[in-house]
């Protein structure tokens, strides 16, 4: 019963290593280095990285920017709630509001074009989950996250909330179109 007894030899730190252990430690260390290397590598050569662009912002200020975009680029309204569908030009700033329990407005983007997507929450924390691509971002009140997105497939996408935000959390779902 030795792991529950003091080491049999008082000077245990001078014991030589077994080859099994030594070999495994070297392999595991090499693998750990690969794991570490992949993240900076992907920043340099991969196409899916988070930007580091973020700002502190009040709910009112963000909401005003989103409203200005909606006023300018709304192409139609959908559902009985008349949610505006916005078709902004390539390269423009696109705003998406997360609030209890709605994403607003509905975005319509073009395939292969890039947009600066701004995300912020008006009240509690929310989770931006683009389905079926399964891209997931945390949306935090008081912070505006900016990320450049480039859709690579046309179709109808859904935006699901995947951060618990109260009793209506499971009803917070919206659409995103890529033409």
């Amino acid at each position: 019963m030795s792991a529950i007894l003091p080491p049999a030899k008082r000077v245990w730190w001078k014991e030589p290593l077994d080859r099994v252990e030594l070999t495994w430690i070297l392999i595991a260390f090499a693998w750990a280095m690969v794991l570490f290397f992949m993240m900076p590598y992907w920043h340099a050569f991969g196409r899916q990285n988070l930007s580091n662009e973020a700002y502190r912002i009040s709910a009112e200020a963000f909401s005003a920017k989103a409203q200005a975009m909606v006023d300018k680029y709304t192409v139609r309204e959908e559902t009985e709630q008349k949610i505006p569908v916005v078709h902004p030009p390539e390269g423009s700033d696109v705003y998406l509001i997360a609030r209890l329990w709605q994403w607003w407005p509905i975005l319509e983007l073009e395939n292969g074009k890039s947009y600066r997507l701004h995300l912020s929450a008006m009240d509690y924390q929310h989770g931006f989950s683009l389905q079926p691509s399964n891209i997931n971002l945390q949306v935090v009140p008081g912070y505006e996250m900016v990320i450049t997105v480039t859709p690579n497939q046309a179709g109808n996408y859904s935006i699901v909330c995947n951060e618990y935000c109260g009793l209506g959390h499971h009803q917070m779902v919206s659409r995103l179109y890529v033409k």
Partner: protein
Amino acid sequence: MNAAQAFRIDTATGLQYHRDAELLMKANAFMGVVFLLIGGVLALLISLTRWPAVHLLPADWFYLTLTAHGLDMLVFWIIFFEMAVLYFCASTLLRCRLATPRMAWLGFALMLIGSVTTNVAIFEGSSSVMMTSYVPMPAKPAFYLGLILFAVGALIGCFVFLGTLVVAKNEKTYEGSLPLVTFGALTACIIAIFTIASGAIILIPTFLWSVGYIHQIDPLMYRTIWWGFGHSSQQINVAAHVSVWYAIAAIVFGAKPMSEKVSRTAFFLYIVFLQLASAHHLLSDPGLSSEWKVFNTSYFMYFAVLASMIHGLTVPGAIEVAQRDKGFTKGLYEWIRKAPWGNPVFSGMFISLIGFGFLGGISGVMMGTEQLNMIIHNTLYVPGHFHATVVIGTTLAFMSLTYFLIPSLFGRQLWMPGVAKWQPYLFGFGMYMFCLVMMGAGTLGVPRRHWDMSFAGTLLPHEFPGSAYLMMGLVGISAVAAVIGGGMYVLVTVGSLLFGRRVEGSTFATRPTPLPRAPVAAAIGGHGGGAGAFAAPGTFTLAMVFLVAFVLYYFINWKYLSTVWGLS
């Protein structure tokens, strides 16, 4: 207490229990099992709700239940039991008296009051804020207050543990260095102090905010510090259950560590690097730089992952060496084939070790990689991962240890040993399945903490593919199997205390009896034969299987990431 009976020596194991410590261990372990029982009932209700064909609870009850389940299991069950483990590793393994038993009882009382307070706040409603209680979503003040009281109680327990180490040293109840298992428990204790401090730093202001003394808590600051508590508390578990693995290998096989130096260094790496892992929860957050994320999520160059990979080899390696010494030397695997698979102390521990590595470990590295996190964050993959680490890893290891403690500590024979024999298999493999299908559902995009994946009644519902519904059905079925396995554990433990035959033959003493010196032969012989030997070839091949699975799955995830939208 009768002074002549201050110490009890259990004849079967030779372990010596200080009577004060013994009572505290019993009380803490018992309260742990009570919360495990409550959490298990809640687990059944939750999984029967997420099983789309059943969809049992209404939405408000689902979110309430989920909040209570998280705290009762992750915090209350595990930390109560860990207190028992800490006292065992200090007072029992070092054969000394427990330092300041009255303070330890105060800690226990605070933990009990705190855990009850938080549960009452949750079940009264309007505190369904999930375990994470992200601001600015408010809970009742009592919700935070209970957690703070519990944390203070646990902190007292940590200092009683440290004090007991000092007592043992001063009163010379052991010679040389701490046993490896106690060293591992010390690691857990140090991590626990860091964890509890983080919890206090964020929960005290949040409590003051909830009663109106503070105007606002920054949500990003909350997340950053809260996860210093939330994730680190799971690191206590890792250090504790790895210690339990070593202890069980020693108890069942008489296994000694292949190398004290390697195993202790690996524990030390936990202290230095494991805390950084709390950054894993912030990888998709705004306002933190990629440099910060990459540095922290890699636990600085993955040295904590390295440590777990080392333990994953050295624990079964030590068993292999011990078994080979006993003559199970045929081929690569006779040592494991002829292991006591009918003994739940061993089978539970081994199922725990394999599941923790293959399911919990590999998935943890996926989620903890900055870019890969984007295709996993907040999906069901996340609970799939942490049920593999915390339930298969920690809970199952603690269950196995219980089967040893019932005769030795509680002085009772196992009641219904046939049930105990099968319990680790049903619970362990039920959880294996449960974790796998949760990760599968998460890969298909199913969100965590979500009442209705069909989005019934919404204007623009999302339709998950049929495979996602299949996965969620399997989540329900495997959860039911695991809950039955958990119920068997509670049945055996509580049944043993009530109806188990008493174990006779303990002897009592007024003073601690020190450890006999290790026989000189054992000190010279040692295991493995030192440098140049290849003492555990079977374990090495298993480790290589693990590595291949790890590498393949890792790069499959990068491949998938490369197909989604461009993000920059």
